[in-house]
């Protein structure tokens, strides 16, 4: 735990206490359920975005990857209604992986900057989503109960349910945290992120690192797409995952992953997601109209960036003195 994580935890707690004082219902089990229900999708996608931001990249197309994966799996369920849940997740993950590899190839081999590539594929994948389903919605009748049940049941402790989806997402988080500490791959990611040319001189292939990061982001986006189906029970090609890129990038930026590259922790990302989930539910409890959501997400990203810039300035002054 470093200062950033402790600070985040403090903000989450203060926000919860403040909301409870404002409205006793905030610590209602039902309300905590909805906070916890909110997290898995975001956390899964944010875990993939984390290494991408570490290497100073960005994946804006993540919302469309989630949408395409959700719709494609839904369309597949139309013709094969008895596919098993692990199979559905595997298919979603594969779709996401392919899209991520496409992003990675454009960025690495065609040398198109990440912002331009992913803002292009954001609309490209959205268009593919329409093509896959022919503009039709995926109705609730198509999504089997064995998938939706994952979002609404799990381990229940004193009326509060931690859904299987969240457990799955947290497991992914733990795996990522372990990999971030011990694996060669994440070592290369951090080295490349803090100084690409030094990493190259040390024998780290920049192409492989970039490719892998975007592929990973696509993979987690694909998994999040299946989670989307599970959580909402339906999906429309226009709205599934649309605008989600903001939330994902916000949670990673709040989580203290430095946008100047080379640093960040998985715990920070998890706490960033938790903070956004609490904020989101707090808006509802405090009866703030839904129209304020976009503004709040934008402000959280900007504040996180400014804190980053400020701490950088402080460090520089400290080094000079």
């Amino acid at each position, binding site marked *: 735990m470093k200062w950033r994580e402790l600070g985040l935890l403090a903000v989450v707690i203060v926000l919860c206490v403040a909301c409870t004082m404002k409205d006793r219902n905030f610590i209602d089990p039902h309300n905590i359920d909805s906070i916890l229900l909110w997290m898995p999708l975001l956390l899964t996608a944010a875990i993939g975005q984390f290494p991408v931001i570490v290497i100073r990249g960005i994946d804006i197309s993540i919302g469309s990857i989630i949408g395409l994966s959700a719709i494609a799996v839904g369309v597949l369920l139309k013709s094969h209604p008895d596919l098993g849940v692990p199979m559905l997740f595997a298919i979603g993950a594969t779709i996401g992986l392919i899209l991520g590899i496409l992003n990675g190839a454009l960025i690495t081999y065609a040398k198109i900057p990440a912002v*331009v590539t992913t803002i292009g594929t954001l609309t490209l994948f959205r*268009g593919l989503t329409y093509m896959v389903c022919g503009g039709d919605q995926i109705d609730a009748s198509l999504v089997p109960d064995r998938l939706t049940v994952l979002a609404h049941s799990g381990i229940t402790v004193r009326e509060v349910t931690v859904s299987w989806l969240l457990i799955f997402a947290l497991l992914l988080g733990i795996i990522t945290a372990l990999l971030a500490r011990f694996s060669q791959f994440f070592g290369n990611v951090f080295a490349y992120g803090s100084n690409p040319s030094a990493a190259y001189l040390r024998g780290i292939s920049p192409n492989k690192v970039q490719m892998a990061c975007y592929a990973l982001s696509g993979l987690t986006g694909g998994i999040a797409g299946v989670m989307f189906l599970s959580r909402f029970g339906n999906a429309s090609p226009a709205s599934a995952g649309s605008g989600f890129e903001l939330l994902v990038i916000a949670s990673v930026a709040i989580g203290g992953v430095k946008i100047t590259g080379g640093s960040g922790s998985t715990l920070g990302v998890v706490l960033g997601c938790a903070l956004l989930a609490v904020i989101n539910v707090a808006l509802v409890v405090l009866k703030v109209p839904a129209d304020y959501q976009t503004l709040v997400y934008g402000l959280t990203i900007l504040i996180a960036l400014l804190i980053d810039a400020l701490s950088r300035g402080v460090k520089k002054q400290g080094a000079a003195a």
Partner: protein
Amino acid sequence: MKRPEWIPAILSIAVFALFWYLSKDFRDIPYLISNTTILAETGLMAIGMTLIIIAGNIDLSVGSILVLTACLMPKLAGHASAPVAILIAVLLGAVMGGINGIIITKAKLPSFLVTLATMAIYRGIAKAMLQADSAEVAPNVKGLDRLSLLGMPYPLVIFLVFALVIGLVLHRKVLGRWLFGIGTNSEAARYAGFPVDRATITAFAVSGALIGIAAFCMDSRLGVARPDMAPGIELQAITIVVAGGTAISGGKGTMVGTLLSWLLMYFVTTGMGVMNIKAEYQLTIIGLILIVSVFGQQVATSIASHRLPKPTKLSTKP
């Protein structure tokens, strides 16, 4: 590739010929001229974006600046006369663009992240302010798109005039030299004594002011402003600039390229419109054009860098 503007020029002729051949509705010159009112607004945004991208930055928030200005202008201007309304729109846009520039330069943050945040903030303010409502535009500023000058609708004239003026500033004035220098190597520009921060902020503010004019044109055309207008318009503006040969890495580009590329985009969107292609697919095709045109540029530069200069003949005479 010494003059990348040839690519959009040739492509626009090809696309024009293609749709002329494909669709009867496209073979209507008065319609083609009058229909420019919508894309002229995007064109105004592309002019400012050219400055920003040449200086090595990007602005993802242009669509949100457009929408927030379009929503605020009728509220603030009320029933004031058209010049006052234009002034308010220009100021609003310039302030929003300037805020982007100030945060990017003073906090030393990458432009794509800052403008991603302000993209949400500006549109978020518009949404929070109007909610499900819309802003009614005063009748005395409506209908600019139906007036014409020299046979061209007013928005098109405004777009062309600003393209000329900003183009001259970019290619003939010191501000332009600064922007090219910053885009090529901002550290070197700083050591050479260029006012890097001031020039960058100016580029963002000028872009914002032009978006303010675009917002006025849009309000005047539609008569009403809603916070969910113009989705994906930033993609279109960036695509126009990049397909016009402006290097996304900065330091290279021309206003002529942006103009020709605007013409290409105009033929593509109008052609898709008369062919009844759905809006969601239109945006997809624009995204594809963006990726393909950057890819084409990269290929062209890599070919150019592999081609060795001709060996100069060494003189054997003493």
